[in-house]
């Protein structure tokens, strides 16, 4: 073996390792599930406010977020069994866990202690979701996922400038168009790729 062959061999190893490390398999169900329960939470809160049924709406969100986290913990355990734990997979998991904890704190603790008004929860979470989708798009190596962040950030600016009841509708629409539908696209992509592999 000469130097050139050795170099080729090392390059081959590096290529395989890099390709494997960045592999992320995401079925998108997490996005769909969280998106749906948040939309249901927004819709319920909106209806209750319109109907003038007053009580501490944080209870609705405690239930919604409780359901979401229960789902995420169970799903994460099952994914751990089903999917190879590549670096990319661990990275995407860490991003969403950290953003999820951040959103839970900002969505529940902040307004509960009166740090800001309830109407500002949606734009704050929208900023965080924009960042999460931007990083996720980079990890998935999918430009369109990265571009979703622009929608989230524009939505956040609008909700910051015009806070009010319509924030529920804006946030709900953002959830549908920038999380649930992308989740469905990721799910279909995952199924298509799984079919090809098997």
């Amino acid at each position, binding site marked *: *073996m*000469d*130097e*050139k062959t*050795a*170099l080729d*061999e*090392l390059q*081959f*190893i590096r290529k*395989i*390792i890099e*390709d*494997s*490390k960045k*592999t992320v398999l995401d079925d998108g169900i997490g996005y769909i599930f969280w998106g749906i329960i948040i939309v249901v939470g927004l819709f319920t809160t909106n209806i209750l406010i319109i109907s003038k049924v007053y009580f501490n709406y944080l209870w609705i969100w405690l239930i919604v977020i409780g359901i979401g986290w229960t789902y995420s913990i169970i799903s994460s355990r*099952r994914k751990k*069994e*089903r999917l*190879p*734990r*590549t*670096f990319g997979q661990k990275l995407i998991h860490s991003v969403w866990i950290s953003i999820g904890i951040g959103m839970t704190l900002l969505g529940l603790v902040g307004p509960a202690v009166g740090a800001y008004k309830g109407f500002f929860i949606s734009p704050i979470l929208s900023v965080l979701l924009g960042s999460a989708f931007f990083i996720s798009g980079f990890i998935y190596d999918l430009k369109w996922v990265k571009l979703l962040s622009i929608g989230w950030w524009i939505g956040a600016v609008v909700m910051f400038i015009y806070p009010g009841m319509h924030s529920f509708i804006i946030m709900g629409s953002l959830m549908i168009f920038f999380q649930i539908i992308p989740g469905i696209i990721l799910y279909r992509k995952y199924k298509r790729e799984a079919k090809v*592999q*098997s």
Partner: protein
Amino acid sequence: MNKFDYHQLDDIIHSRIRLAIIAVLITVDDAEFNFLKEKVNTTDGNLSVHIRKLEEAGYVLVKKEFIDRKPKTVYSLSNKGKKAFEIYVEQLSKLIKK
């Protein structure tokens, strides 16, 4: 150009497919057959043969389990396999530095 005695290289790893299998397994805790097949880009039969060789050498561990009530075979790199891979890469690096 420096000539290197290739006999010093580990025969088990010194094969493109087996090297690729190990390089993939080094990046994950464990992996299923289909994932390896996609990453290594080879056929079922070829992959099976090479995985068996690595398993016989004690470089790869095979675990059969049931996930969602379906039988799955999961492969991981043993400590012996990791060590062998490190040595192999080190030998190649030394050759380049000569």
